[in-house]
């Protein structure tokens, strides 16, 4: 598992054509990102102090093979690198955080959060590669590697509805089902994003994002 992370993270850093998610927005911007899938739920709220870094708080729920746990995390997100080109943008973000965990065996413990994300986007193509790790004592750890690729069937003007077709693959080694592939639709409208999908084994996926 650790070797997989290493391979992906090296690939992220080595190749600027891959880039990350959106934990940092614009200066003084607020972001909220809820999402849920089979056996997991994320809720992240952040405030971008500048366009380079944000602070935030997150809630994670994980139902693994051996245990179920909820995590409350305070985190710091940093934009490591951005490539702004006329027809594309690529980003690499890193996040670190700490907080508490409560698991199904009624154990409370300190936990840490680390993540590295990269994304590359044009008006037609979108790719994402992200890895995250929730670590806490007692081997209650949860890791996820997410790969996304998508395309926009049409180019919408600013402030019109933009639709994306995205394929998402999650690798979560601590879950009953390690690999989940989910085709999904993403809708952008003004400062809101909504994602709806169903995994190949029939589990629903719902995500959203809003910037204020």
């Amino acid at each position, binding site marked *: 598992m650790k070797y997989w992370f290493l391979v992906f993270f090296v690939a992220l850093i080595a190749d600027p054509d891959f880039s990350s998610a*959106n934990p940092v*927005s*614009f*200066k*003084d*911007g607020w972001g909220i990102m809820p999402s849920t899938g089979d056996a997991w739920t994320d809720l992240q709220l952040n405030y971008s102090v*500048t*366009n380079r870094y944000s602070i935030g708080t997150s809630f994670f729920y994980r139902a693994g093979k051996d245990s179920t746990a909820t995590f409350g995390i305070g985190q710091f997100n940093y934009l490591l690198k*951005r*490539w*702004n*080109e*006329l*027809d*594309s*943008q690529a980003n690499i973000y890193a996040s670190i955080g700490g907080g508490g965990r409560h698991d199904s065996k009624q154990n409370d413990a300190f936990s840490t959060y680390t993540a590295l994300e990269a994304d590359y*986007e*044009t*008006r037609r193509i979108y790719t994402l590669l992200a890895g995250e790790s929730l670590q806490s004592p007692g081997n209650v750890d949860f890791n996820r590697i997410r790969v996304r690729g998508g395309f926009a069937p049409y*180019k*919408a*003007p*600013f*402030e*019109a509805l*933009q639709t994306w077709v995205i394929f998402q693959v999650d690798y979560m080694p601590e879950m009953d089902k390690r690999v989940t592939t989910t085709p999904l639709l993403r809708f*952008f409208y*003004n*400062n*809101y*994003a909504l994602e709806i999908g169903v995994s190949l084994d029939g589990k629903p996926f719902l995500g959203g*994002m809003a*910037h204020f």
Partner: protein
Amino acid sequence: MKIKQKLLYLSLLLLIPQFLRADEVTITVKGMVCSFCAQGIKKTFGKNEKVTAVNVDLEKKLVKVETRDGESISDEELRKTINDAGYDVLEIKREKHA
């Protein structure tokens, strides 16, 4: 002397409308490929009291900023605002608006 003074005042009066005309700035922006993310440009300019309108053209990568009559925004301020929103400026063009 009086004629010269009158001419001077008249010239100044004629110049006043020039200063009162609104400034329209067109900025070519790098990295602006996502309508959702480009909302940050509108919100960041929206905090500036000199600005009356912001229009984004994703296809041409342009941001048009209009200011109040008699107000203008320096290139430096424009670049900083675009950078705060997460983008880079390629070019700035200005024209006076009647």
